[in-house]
């Protein structure tokens, strides 16, 4: 069967990175360079495997291949779990985005992490991550998916806390935050794991609820009707709980606070895990579940209450997008700006999928979400990699220690600028423009205008913080720090090719996909239409969407995003690029702008809220219970019990006098009683 040619890359693409991870400690014993190139080699193999599957995108159906994995004989549900892979357009696109960008970042790592004493651990976790991420993407059932999902969470934990010694000397390199909210790497890693675990707990509860009825956790079986065995009053909370997993993993409200602090990890980690791939896993899961839940909502023609699930996804997406964009505007660390930006853009993807599910023209939103996922991965990875270069150069994570780097680091500047333009959505030649506009059109077509308004406002905010970031980093005067470094003899210079080639390639890709964007956009729509129709099947009933026709939506989107571009970018240009005004004076204490800035800089106090409401009380209550109940009540009770018994026996002991007279009298009395009893028994 010609299917075989697509199946073995599907298994090997994640097996090879796993193999690379396991071999890394052994290769390290041979020679450090063998270890380094070996690690990159295995990630390249993974990318080669995913690339081999690309031709299959053009056929919409799904290929499924399974192996028996675990048996629990006699179980009413889940008695046999099979491991398997799905090869379809969704998994192929996602796998390639992951594998190719991973490979480029591994190459960049050779330069960026040079000289680090713990490189073996680094390569191990990076390859383990890539393997788990691809495992997650290719899985055909929830449990195998969970293995990958938790696996990437573990690698994220290990890599965020990579420099776990928390040395104060590295404050400018790998701590995150300032003042009371300054966190060392080990804290950030732990925080990431625990916050995402809350989402995972919700995900698990939802899974259990579904499995109890459907009997299977295989995506294809669920699609083919097993989902209909779940009654609606169970399916709705289950779907919402399952969405908790993506909320955690993709850092949406209310579980977003771990991602900005994850910037304590090496920049390669931030680029790979927290921009391009792992955080997209949540979006991917929603995309994978989309046909299943869409069918459950719309199969009768008019939508049932499950549509609320999609509304929830859309609203959480758009509110997150807005809130985190505001936080990006006021952040002083370059990686944090990009982190908030990532959260915001992920919100856009959730928005797209959510709106798609709540309307008849689902393919537009689905295609938009998918296109933006790919588009964002490319430009955000590049933005992080270039940020790594400037952090390296200025030896600080704060933008106030940068400035004027345009002339000394031209390749980095242009790579960052081009990809930043893609993020802003500057028309026509940047892929970000096409993908973002697809997302913006979706709520208009679906008739959900409030969502559109919030989304378009966020475009303005995006433009502002992006231009601000470019301005502070590359324009203006050189900062004190840079001047000091240069006076000490460290000349600021462009990075080595092993570092700039990857991000230059990504910048070229974002332009390439932009130039072909007009055709790409149509292609994605067609693909989504065919792919989803083949899964969902023909939907009966007549339903017209409540929004506006597509060309009208496109027109409005283009005009309003251009307007927002101006509204956002021009003031930022004025203040941060031309340096016509001093932003510190504008946001001084006491001014309105200053108060706004403080609120945004403090992350809407959401982070502090988490600690005050959840962390400190739990620890405090536990300690209180330990002191006052466990020790005072329960332990005391034991000793009270022992004391009572001792009191009793001490009292009773007094009858044992040891005086012969009393003993004899006692014996005689007892003997007499016995005789009387015996006589009574004998007499009947």
């Amino acid at each position: 069967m010609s299917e075989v040619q697509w199946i073995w890359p599907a298994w090997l693409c994640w097996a090879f990175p796993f193999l690379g991870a396991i071999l890394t400690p052994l290769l390290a014993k041979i020679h450090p360079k063998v270890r380094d190139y070996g690690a990159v080699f295995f990630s390249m193999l993974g990318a080669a495997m995913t690339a081999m599957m690309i031709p299959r995108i053009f056929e919409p159906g799904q290929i499924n291949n399974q192996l028996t994995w675990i048996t629990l004989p006699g179980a009413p549900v889940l008695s046999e779990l099979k491991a398997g892979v799905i090869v379809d357009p969704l998994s192929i696109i996602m796998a390639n985005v992951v594998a190719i960008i991973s490979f480029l970042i591994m190459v960049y790592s050779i330069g960026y992490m040079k000289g680090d004493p713990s490189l073996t651990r680094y390569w191990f976790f990076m390859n383990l991550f890539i393997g788990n991420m691809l495992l997650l993407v290719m899985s055909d059932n929830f449990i195998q998916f969970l293995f990958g999902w938790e696996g990437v969470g573990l690698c994220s934990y290990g890599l965020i806390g990579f420099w776990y010694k928390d040395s104060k000397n590295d404050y400018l390199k790998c701590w995150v935050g300032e003042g009371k909210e300054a966190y060392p790497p080990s804290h950030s890693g732990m925080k990431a794991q625990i916050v995402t675990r809350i989402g995972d707990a919700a995900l698990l509860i939802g899974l259990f609820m579904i499995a109890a009825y459907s009997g299977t956790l295989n995506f294809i079986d669920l699609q083919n009707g097993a989902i209909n065995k779940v009654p609606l009053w169970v399916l709705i909370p289950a779907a919402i709980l399952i969405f908790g997993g993506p909320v955690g993993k993709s850092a949406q409200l209310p579980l977003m606070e771990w991602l900005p602090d994850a910037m304590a990890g090496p920049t390669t980690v931030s680029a790979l895990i927290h921009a391009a791939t792992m955080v997209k896993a949540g979006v991917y899961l929603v995309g994978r579940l989309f046909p299943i839940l869409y069918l459950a909502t719309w199969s009768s023609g008019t939508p049932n209450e499950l549509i609320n699930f999609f509304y929830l996804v859309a609203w959480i997406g758009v509110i997150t997008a807005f809130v985190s964009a505001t936080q990006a505007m006021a952040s002083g660390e370059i990686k944090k700006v990009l982190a908030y930006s990532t959260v915001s853009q992920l919100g856009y993807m959730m928005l797209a999928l959510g709106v798609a599910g709540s309307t008849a023209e689902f393919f537009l939103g689905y295609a938009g979400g998918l296109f933006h996922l790919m588009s964002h991965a490319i430009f955000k990875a590049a933005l992080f990699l270039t940020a790594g270069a400037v952090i390296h150069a200025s030896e600080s994570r704060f933008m106030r220690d940068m400035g004027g780097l345009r002339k000394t680091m031209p390749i980095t500047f242009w790579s960052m600028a081009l990809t930043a333009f893609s993020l802003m959505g500057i028309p026509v030649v940047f892929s970000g423009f096409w993908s973002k506009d697809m997302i913006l059109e979706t709520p208009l077509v679906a008739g959900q205008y409030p969502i559109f308004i919030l989304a378009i406002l966020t475009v303005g905010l995006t433009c502002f913080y992006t231009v601000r970031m470019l301005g502070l980093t590359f324009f203006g005067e050189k900062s004190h720090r840079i001047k000091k470094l240069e006076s000490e003899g460290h000349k600021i210079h462009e990075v080595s090719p092993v570092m700039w080639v990857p991000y230059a390639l990504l910048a070229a890709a974002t332009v390439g996909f932009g130039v072909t964007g007009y055709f790409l956009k149509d292609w994605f729509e067609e693909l989504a239409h065919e792919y989803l129709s083949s899964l969902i099947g023909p939907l009966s009933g007549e339903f017209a969407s409540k929004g506006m026709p597509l060309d009208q939506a496109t027109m409005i989107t283009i005009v309003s995003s251009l307007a927002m571009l101006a509204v956002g970018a021009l003031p930022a240009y004025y203040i941060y690029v031309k340096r016509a005004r001093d932003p510190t004076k504008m946001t001084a204490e006491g001014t309105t702008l200053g108060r706004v800035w403080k609120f945004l800089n403090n992350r809407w106090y959401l982070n502090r809220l988490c600690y005050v409401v959840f962390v400190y009380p739990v620890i405090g209550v536990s300690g209180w219970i330990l002191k006052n109940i466990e020790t005072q009540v329960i332990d005391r009770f034991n000793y009270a019990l022992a004391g009572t018994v001792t009191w009793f026996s001490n009292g009773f002991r007094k009858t044992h006098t040891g005086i012969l007279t009393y003993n004899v009298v006692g014996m005689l009395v007892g003997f007499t009683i016995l005789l009387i009893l015996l006589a009574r028994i004998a007499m009947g």
Partner: protein
Amino acid sequence: MIDTNNLLLQTILVPAIVSVLTLAVGGKLKKNTGWIAFITTLYVTGIFAYITLQLFSAPPGTTLEAAYEWGPYIGQFSLLADGLSAPIALTIAILTTVISVYSIAYMEHEHGIGGYFTLYLLYTAGMIGTVLTTNLAAFFFFFELMLLPSWALIGIWGTGEKEKIAFKYFMFTEVGALALLAGIVTIRFMVGSFDIFKIASRTTEVSLSVLTAIAVAMLIGLFIKMAIFPLHTWLPDAHAEAPTPISALLSPAMIGIGGYAAIRILYTGFPRVLANWQFTTTITALALVTLVYGGMMALAQDDIKRLLAYSSISQMGYLLLGIGSLSMIGLAGATLLYVSHGLSKAILFMVAGIFIHNLKTRSIKSLGGLGSKMPYAATASLIAFLGLAGTPPLIGFWGEFFIFTGSMYTGFAGALEPDITRVVITGLAVAASVMTAAYGLWTIRRVFFGPVRENLGEAKEASWLMIGPILVLTALAVILGVYPTILSSIIGPVVSGLASAVFGA
């Protein structure tokens, strides 16, 4: 199939007989007496590994049985290795084997080592006997045989107020054992036999309240052993002050036996009691309370051994949730959780022992930054805590996953209509599992990450006698996590029969 080679009897008798030998040569060999214990327990492990593989390749539902004539009133001394008892016995055997090696290093400076290993082997025999036997009189005998050596071990080689704590441990467990005995004797009266398998069929005329009373009496004994809230107070002291290799057996191996016994006795002998909604829901609620309480207390600890002790209480909460799930999936999960908790907790106690032995401290506050000094210990500890928290691809994931699935399944699709109470309790339990991750990762952070404390500058990885056992268990946790079928496929048929007795045929 019948145990014609008396393999099962050997697993109990051989350690018991060798224990005399160790007492004799202990004075001369000193710490190397441990190698005798190692060989013995390795032999026992070999037997159980062989049995497990046999069961795995045999048709589903195969068992290995042995019965010996014992006495006219007591009945037969019957032993059974099936899909439920074999994994548990194997875990106990593996733990006793690796910990005997660990003991050689840990106890090297202690006195009376011969006596230590004698008691160790008797303790092993007691635990294995408890798991294998299906005669309630023999069960009681082995239950006490577990108690006495461990009492002596804590009282002689323990730390802190060891005599008092050993006494408290003894009294608590003994009171529980007496409650258990009361139940057993009553059953003998009613059923005419000590054989577990005869109880259900011969008590069909007995009223439900009487049966429930008997079950409760027996459960009091078993719950004290499992340290279910509020009968748990003996455990933190006992496990914290016991010599660490014994803590590594008390916690992982022994307290779970209470859970195993609960499954075996309740489901085989008292299915009508389990069908009672109030009874089972009480158990489920108790499980949730234990789970949460243990977790919260663990969060509040500075003494690392006490933290692990409270963590064990919390894990027993999970086990109890599986027991009360009335679903074969939940029971299978409970068995797998026993295995995973056994492996993880043994690893963690052994690492704690490394701190005590090499760094002379148990306080988390005085540790820090040890990851770079002790990479193997750090990795093993992380894997162990992740296993407790139910992270794939470790065996702990499967234990918790199946427990929750089973309980939820019963809640939604079980014989009673949608049981919302059960669903809510199970949901809360899943949410509370975040706490396990929290105390685990927080401990890892405080102990292994951050800057190295000045007074710990000389710290280094422990000797192979201590790290080797830890790594063996870590590897097992991963292998079984990726491929749990070797256990799940033999557990399934047995627990399927047990669970269906409650509502079904």
